[in-house]
Structures are given as C-alpha cells and as structure tokens.
C-alpha cells in the first residue's frame, strides 16, 4: 500500500539531492540549528565571567590593589577558607560513613536512615540556620557556620557516594579478599578509591555552595565573601568595592574547580565485562556495634531534621493562626510558582540542544561549550546577579529590574542542573534506536520526536523539577534582581526574619519545605535508579 509512494518519494529526493549533498552526508539535518542554539546559550553563560574580567580591566590595577589588598578582604578570605577547609572533610566523613552504613551493613532500618539522610535537602540552608538561631539564640561565628553547613549540605555527598557504593562490582572486593586483604583493608584499598569520583563531585558541589550561600551565614552573623558583597551592594549599590569582592570570590570558585578537576584524575571506574552484577555483600553488625552504628544516623537526623522541625513547630504553635497572613502568603506562593515554572521551562528548553549535541556529536566544540556552562554554574548567584545588574544598567536598560533579568539569572545559574538530567535522559536513547526508526520509515526529525525525545522525557522532567526546586529556594539573586514589589516565598521569609518576626517567617519556611519534599523524593529515587536497582 505505502510502497509505491515511498518509492516515488525516494526518486524525488534522489533528484533534489545534489544540492544538499555535502550537508546531509555527515549529519542529520537537525544538527545545524542545534549547534547555533548551543553556541548562543553558551555565550550567554559566559556573561558573568566576562563581567568579572571586564570590570577588573575597567577598574584598573591601582584601584584593584587598593580595594583588594586590605585587612577586611584578608579577614573574609581567612573566614571563607577556614569554613571550606573544616566543613568539607566533616561532610565527606559523615557522607561516606552514612552511605556505608545504609548500603553495606545490616543496620536496622537502613531504608529509613537512607531516606532521612537525603531529606535535609528539602530544608533550604537559610531555614537550617533560622532553626539553630531560634534554638540557641547566641550562636554565631565560624563554629556555627561549620555546624549548620555540615548539617545542610552533607546529603550532597551522601547521595552520590551511596549510589556509587550500590553500583560497585562486588567481584572486585571478592578478588581483593581472596588476595589476602582483611575486610578493613578491602574497604580502604579497594572500595574507597573507587568512591573518589563521587567524593570529588560531591565535595565540589558542597564547596561551591559554601562560597555562594548568603542567607545561612547572614543569619548566624558569620562574614564570608558573599555576605560582605551583599552588604557592600546594599550600602553603596553598584560600587567597585562590591564588584572587586565579587572578582575575588569568582577566583576562589575557579580555584576550587581546578583543584577538583586535578584530583579527579583521568581514571575511569566502571564495571568491565559482561554478565549481570551480583548483589553487594553486606557487613553483619552485632550487639553493641549495632547500637554504636545506629547512634550516627540517629544523631545526624536529630540535628538535620529534628532541630528544624521542632523549632518550626514551636514558632507555629506560638504564633497560632495569626502568623498565617494569607493576604501576604498566597501572592508569594503564586509568584514563586510563576517564577519557578517559567524558569524551569526556559532552562530545560535552553539545555536541550546543548545536551543533544554533547551526546550525539561529541567533539572539541561541544567540550568547549560544556566547559563554558560548567564555569558559569560554579559562580555564586551573587556574582551572576551583580553581573546582570551592571550589564542591564549599562547596555540593556529596558530589562533592568524586570522579570526577564531574574529569569536570565536563573537560566545562567541552574542550566547545568537541567543539563545533567537531560544528558542522562538522551543517553538512554542510543543513536542505534534512531537509526532503527529511520530504517522503519521515520524521517530523521520524526525519529527524534518518536524515539529520542520520548525516552529523554523523564530526564527532562527530572531536570525541570530540579531547577524548579532550586528557584523556589533561591534567595540571593532574587533579592538583588527582582522588580520591586516581587515577593517569593524565600524573599518573604527573609523579610520576616530581617524584622526579627520569626513566628511570621515560619509559615513561609513550612511551605518551602513541603514544596521541596516531592522533589527530594524524586532525587532519592533517581539515585536508586541510576544504580540500576
């Protein structure tokens, strides 16, 4: 039935072919506009970096020296470095220990502890410090900074380490033991090295959060670069002092990036060979060891979930119905939804061509584009915000202090989150499937739509959800960039705590946590699934 038609088509194309031949020889027709869009997105992503470099050149060396080499900057630098150097090892130790206990032992209630170790992600970092300030009002300084940071950020290490532990080939451990290594030696010599990539990646993520976070440290009065830039910006608006501090902060982030990529090495840890992997071995804990082991997840959960929930509950009970000022809360909820959905949609759409290119046509150009996006994502929200304030004031005045600028900031900050999920999604659809679809009569664009995009849809949805979550809890850039009158849940919460009306802030915090919960669950199940279980 369709056969003669197809043959006619084939002849028709055959006649038209010579003109387009050189294009279609190499790539499916879609490739060109995909490349163009990817380059545009990546150039956009370079804006903040261009701002830092441009502003440094404009300011001039003499002024830079004057602004950067002074005791205040040294003090901030010491604070920030101490925070990172103390927090990171604690997070790593806690994350690895919990991952091992929940994945590789017969600890009672491992599934529950695994969920509880992921759950703190649902609590925005500044809500963690709000909870601790409520519980212990005089808490402040470096100790408080480290305490709250570890509690708020350790899941970023727990999740990848647990996922990797689950995926490791147990045969390697069997072999190590058969070669005469004791169990603890197997862990340190065989298992731990294979966790290196997960630890490096997680530590980088935590480190970048430490550098970028504003609300957490502002609330417990611990000065970092980000809080200093924010204060500077509020007192003198768009002065060179704030810009230069932002430059130093950006430099710190780049240093952290290069340390991570150096320690990551070139090694690849993958399961070699065919055959299905066997289930992981479990360490049997007995008697008082079990009790001791249980203490860690119990203590961690009390600190990371108990404290926020108890203090929130206290404020809500103390505040009663009066704190639920619906006239304020409902618009905030609505605006948050609007911003987060629009931001998630735009960011996922922008990430799509970049992700497709990186899977289907990996090459030098694509690697360059990817590193552009990577570097920008490592820059704190405050640097992105400063860059956009400066650029919109000077070049694009009409969009200054509009939703466009806010959404642009979200795009720049959260593009990689969408990218990572999308890339995993597209990788689920090997090019072979597109080929098969074409051999079954689908044109290249039909094949893309019917096969690749359908398979990538869960990845795209997960990416969009992650961006949605990030925007819901975003504080810094929204505070700096949003048009006056805008109030999201996060900025509403912040306004209340700034007025020391902690009870009135509690409903905002509760709603943010509730909104984050389904997405945290998604993150949890995703990490289980990537492990192939």
């Amino acid at each position, binding site marked *: 039935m369709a056969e003669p038609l*197809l043959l006619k088509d084939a002849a028709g*194309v*055959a006649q038209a072919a010579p003109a387009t031949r050189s294009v279609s020889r190499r790539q499916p027709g879609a490739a060109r506009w995909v490349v163009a869009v990817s380059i545009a997105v990546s150039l956009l992503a370079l804006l903040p970096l261009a701002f830092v470099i441009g502003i440094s050149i404009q300011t001039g060396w003499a002024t830079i020296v004057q602004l950067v080499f002074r005791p205040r900057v040294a003090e901030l630098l010491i604070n920030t470095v101490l925070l990172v150097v103390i927090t990171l090892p604690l997070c790593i130790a806690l994350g690895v220990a919990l991952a091992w206990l929940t994945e590789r032992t017969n600890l009672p209630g491992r599934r529950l502890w695994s969920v509880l170790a992921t759950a703190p992600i649902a609590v925005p970092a500044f809500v963690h410090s709000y909870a601790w300030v409520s519980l212990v009002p005089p808490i402040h300084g470096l100790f408080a900074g480290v305490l709250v940071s570890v509690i708020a950020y350790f899941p970023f290490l727990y999740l990848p380490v647990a996922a990797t532990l689950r995926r490791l080939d147990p045969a390697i451990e069997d072999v190590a033991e058969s070669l005469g290594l004791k169990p603890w030696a197997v862990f340190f010599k065989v298992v731990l090295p294979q966790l290196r990539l997960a630890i490096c990646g997680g530590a980088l993520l935590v480190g970048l959060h430490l550098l970028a976070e504003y609300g957490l440290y502002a609330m417990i009065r611990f000065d970092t670069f980000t809080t200093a830039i924010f204060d500077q910006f509020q007192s003198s608006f768009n002065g060179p002092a704030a810009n230069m501090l932002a430059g130093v902060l950006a430099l710190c982030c780049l240093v952290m990036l290069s340390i991570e990529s150096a320690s990551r090495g070139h090694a690849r840890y993958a399961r070699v060979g065919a055959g299905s992997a066997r289930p992981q071995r479990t360490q049997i804990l007995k008697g008082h060891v079990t009790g001791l082991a249980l203490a860690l997840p119990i203590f961690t959960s009390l600190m990371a979930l108990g404290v926020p929930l108890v203090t929130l509950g206290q404020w809500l009970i103390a505040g009663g119905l009066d704190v639920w000022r619906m006239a304020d809360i409902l618009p905030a909820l609505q605006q948050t939804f609007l911003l987060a959905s629009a931001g998630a949609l735009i960011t996922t759409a922008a990430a799509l061509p970049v992700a497709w290119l990186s899977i289907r046509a990996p090459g030098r150009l694509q690697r360059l584009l990817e590193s552009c996006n990577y570097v920008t994502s490592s820059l704190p929200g405050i640097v992105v915000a400063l860059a956009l304030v400066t650029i919109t004031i000077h070049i694009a005045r009409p969009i200054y202090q509009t939703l466009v600028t806010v959404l642009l900031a979200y795009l720049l900050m959260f593009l990689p989150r969408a990218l990572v999920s999308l890339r995993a999604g597209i990788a*689920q659809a090997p090019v072979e*499937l597109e*080929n098969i*679809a074409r*051999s079954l009569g689908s044109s290249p664009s039909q094949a893309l739509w019917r096969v690749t995009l*359908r*398979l990538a849809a869960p990845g795209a949805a997960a990416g969009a959800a992650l961006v949605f979550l990030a925007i819901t809890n975003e504080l810094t850039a929204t505070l700096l960039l949003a048009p006056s009158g805008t109030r999201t849940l996060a900025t509403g919460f912040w306004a209340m705590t700034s007025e020391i009306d902690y009870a009135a802030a509690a409903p905002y915090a509760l709603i943010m946590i509730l909104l984050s919960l389904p997405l945290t669950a998604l993150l949890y199940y995703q990490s289980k699934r990537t492990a192939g279980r």
Partner: protein
Amino acid sequence: MNALELNALYKTFGNVAALNDVSLCVPAGSRAAIVGPSGSGKTTLLRMIAGFEFPDSGSIRLNGQTLVDSANQVPAHQRLIGYVPQDGALFPHMTVAGNIGFGLSGTPASKQQRVEELLAMVALETRMSKSWPHELSGGQQQRVALARALAQRPRLMLLDEPFSALDTGLRAAMRKMVAKLLSEAGITTILVTHDQAEALSFADQLAVMRQGRLVQAGPPMELYLHPADRQTALFLGDAVIMPAQVEDGWATCDLGRIPVNHPSHSGPAHIMLRPEQLHLTPEHGEAIHANGCLGVITDRDFGGNVCTLTVELHPQVCAVSGQTTNRSLLVRSSGLGAPPTGSTVHISTLGNAHVLPGA
C-alpha cells in the same frame, strides 16, 4: 536477477580505510553472509546499505534503483530496508505491539491484525504483544526485532550479528528459524557475522572480508574447500597446510601422494586439507599402505561428539625442501573409539587436496 549490487565502495574514517573497493552482487531472494574478523569493515558495509553511513565513492543499487552514487542518495527512511542489530535494539518505551507496529500505518484494528500475523510468523504468542521489552528473554527480543523489521515488507533484510548474544543452543535454533522464515517470505537477506560456522550454515553465498577488502565471495562449500589464500582457509575452519611437490594432478608431501584439484599446476606449492579429510586407522604392524603414512597420537582433546587428535608423523625427508621434518597434524575423529594417546596410527586422506594459489 541481482537484487543488490554494490559497486567499488570506498570509505575511510580518519586515515583508516574501512572499505576498500568493495563490489558484491546478491541475487534476489537469496541469503548472503558477510563474514570477517572484528574491524574488517563488515558492519560499516551493512550500515552503508541501510543508509546510516554514506560511501566516499562507489554506488549501491537495489532492485534496479540507485540508492547511492556520486550524484544521488536516498535517506535511510525511504529505502524500505529492514535492519536487525546485534542486541535487537527494541524501543524501551513501547510494548511489543508498539515496537512491531512502529513502521505500520493504518487504523489501530488493521495494525493490530498485522502485529498478530507478524507475532505468529516469528513464533511468539499473541498475548505477548502487551509485554515490555525488558520482560522478554534475549531470544524473544530478537524475534520481536525481526518481526518489527518484517512489518514494513522490506525489499532487503539486514542482520547485524543478531544471534551472537544468544546461548549456543538457542543460537542454532534461531538461525534455522530465521533462514526458513526469510526464504519463505522470499526476502533477500544479508547477515553479518564474525562466526564462520554461523555464516557457512546460514548463507547461499558467502563473502569474506579482511581489512576493508572483500577477499573472496561464493557458495559456502566452495569457499570452505577452495579458499583463495591461507588466511581465508584458516578463518573458515581448521586446516592442515603443508608444502608439497605438485605434478600431473598429484601432490607429493609428508602424507604421501594425494590427488589435487588443480591438474594444471605443477612445481612446489602449499596444499590445504580440512582435518575431516584425514582418516585414521589403528596400525597393526601390517605392510605400509600404498596411500598414506604412519604417525603417533601425542594429544587427545575430547570434545564430546568430536575428538580432536594431535598426530605426530614419523620423521621423514620432506619432498620439497629435502630436510627431515617432524610434522604434527590435527585430525578429527569420532568421540567414540578414538585411538588412545601414544598409539601408532595409519593416516589416509579422502578427496582432493586444495592447492593454495601463490603460496
């Protein structure tokens, strides 16, 4: 009539020649197998026929229609060529029915009827149409992939090592089923494989590829017994290759005098025999036979139905070089009653020896 004609195809990746002057004709309704070691370019050739790759030069014609030449190219989706890859590559987001019906057009009812027909064709039960690919075994996945490719009534069927992921027993059964099904449907088929046994049993016509070149093409039996060179001889199966002096249709070698298939050849040459052409009889101290020689079993490799024996010939003066040699041969014998290690046997030959050209 030839269904598929490949003419002088060239393709390079970087500076590696993947295909180097490949020409091949496949008669309509026949089954051809392209066989060669990994990296020989056989998969590139198959993908080129399917339309996933394009040659640097050369042409491909199917049923008289030009698919590719220097001026034209028909994209994959307009070629009507079925393709079954190694792992089946079922669409994971579709049920079995969705997969098979992917290339079908028409009303849902007519589609469903066709899907059921196709399921029956590949010997799967109708109730399976609602299953998901991950619920199927490897063999079932391959059947669904085959049904999916058959759905659009392809003009040519390409099979890219479709049996290699299956268990040994299942593999032979699948191969038989596919061969029967395709020849009943009258679909011209090309199978790519690195497994010579599979190629020999599946194909009407065999094409051997090596380093991007088509070394030899012809009926399987012809290639097996009369390979073009030493490498092809060894690739298609175990072989006994030895120097000999050829004259008047007879070769004189360590095994005695053996008739050869090249009466015109004369002078020194290498001859080839397949191990099953050698026949062993226990030596009882009788007089030496006119044909053949004596040897001692030095190793027995018991393999169930077949026993592979290593036989060391009694030292003798080589007919060609004049040196004394200690030649070892591999001989196949029935697993039952194979002579024990250390025993002396008499070796005779069956059929003609093949003179390797230019060796």
